[in-house]
């Protein structure tokens, strides 16, 4: 897809309309855009905060909501205690505040129903956010594309979007959720309690009717490196693996 003629994405103000705590460390912020834009599942926005003296901090956040879910976009932000922007959202931002953002951004880590599948999604911690947009897009489009989501977090209480994911899993409509808790025992019979490895990827793959046509891996850098290697060792071609790294 050529995006040489991609629409411009100027800075705009967006108002926080709702704040919802997802886990002890992750909170969702819903924004009403002053200039609504169309986007694809997996894309992100850049957010910038401006201090009274003109100093600005800018960070990227993936869009968690599906493109068809209405004008508001959802960002799910994990608090890093010694960070600059994420603690601002957790400790200062309130409903009614106006925040500057631009988007949609990123044209590689994206999926639409029309791109087909099966899909293998692999997320670590807040790396699940763009994958959640893909899962929600699939649901709202009533897509039949088989999707397996492998989601790694430390403990059960850190499973972002837990109720929503489990209820989607329960539908048995071609979406499969594989949770792995790295610091706690598995809570569901089909889940794991270790880091993602090759054997786990092979078993997750086997839940799909055919081998994946596309795989998306997202999370912190170390997670993405290890998980992408596990996919390759499980026989998945590097050509079909797309990664998004959240940095440190």
């Amino acid at each position: 897809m050529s995006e040489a003629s991609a629409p411009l994405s100027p800075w705009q103000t967006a108002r926080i309309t709702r704040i919802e705590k997802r886990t002890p460390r992750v909170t969702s912020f819903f924004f009403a855009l002053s200039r609504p834009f169309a986007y694809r599942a997996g894309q992100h926005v850049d957010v910038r905060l401006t201090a009274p003296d003109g100093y600005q901090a800018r960070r990227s956040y993936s869009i968690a909501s599906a493109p068809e879910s209405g004008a508001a976009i959802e960002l799910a932000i994990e608090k890093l205690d010694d960070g600059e922007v994420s603690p601002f959202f957790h400790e200062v931002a309130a409903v009614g505040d106006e925040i500057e953002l631009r988007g949609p951004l990123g044209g590689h880590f994206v999926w639409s129903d029309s791109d087909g599948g099966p899909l293998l999604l692999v997320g670590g911690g807040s790396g699940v956010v763009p994958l959640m947009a893909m899962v929600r897009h699939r649901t709202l489009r009533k897509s039949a594309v088989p999707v397996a989501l492998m989601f790694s977090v430390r403990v059960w209480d850190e499973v972002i979007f837990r109720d929503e994911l489990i209820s989607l899993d329960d539908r048995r409509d071609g979406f499969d959720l594989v949770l792995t808790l790295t610091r706690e025992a598995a809570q569901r019979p089909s889940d794991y309690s270790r880091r993602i490895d090759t054997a786990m990827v092979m078993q997750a793959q086997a839940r799909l009717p055919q081998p994946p046509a596309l795989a998306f891996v997202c999370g912190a850098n170390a997670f993405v490196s290890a998980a992408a290697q596990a996919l390759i060792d499980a026989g998945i071609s590097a050509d079909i693996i797309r990664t998004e790294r959240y940095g440190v």
Partner: protein
Amino acid sequence: MVTRGFSSGRKPPTETDTRIPPGQYLEQGFPVLSAGPTPRVRTEDWSFTLKHGPRPIKKWNWAEFNQLPLTKMTRDIHCVTAWTKFDTAWQGVLVDDILADAGIEAPTGFLLAHGYDGYTTNVPAKDLTTGKAMVALLYEGKPITADHGGPARLLVPHLYFWKSAKWLNGLQFTERDEPGFWELRGYHIYGDPWREQRYSGDP
């Protein structure tokens, strides 16, 4: 627009401030970004090809390439995801020295850099020559790790870092400025951090 309740706690001191392009922040670590898994390229298998359009001009294997003059370059680098890192120390072969070894001068005004992962990125020839850019082989005196684009990566420090293609295996002169991988996916065709040319449509 001032953001309610946000203060400039991390504002860098003025002497470093002038080294940080607009919208960037100072990073001590070295984050890794790439579009796909990390290719592991063994130096035995590595080669580098200089092309003009489809036509190869010269090809070097690892040993041959390492015979070319090594130059040190210590520069600030700027990633489009908003981090800037000061004083990164590289050693490698200047693009000027590659062209000299091939016995040519830039035949066109544009190049595409190619990586082992299929990645491409476009850079004008004038931004790669006259000592501005190199094919880096060492980072802080050691071979560049696969995560950071080793065995060899392009280093064009004055442009956003996605232009410094990882896992480099060739440079190709093109007649026109042909957008590469990220440039086709919404990123700026040139990518000057001082003019904040992040995304297509930025001035």
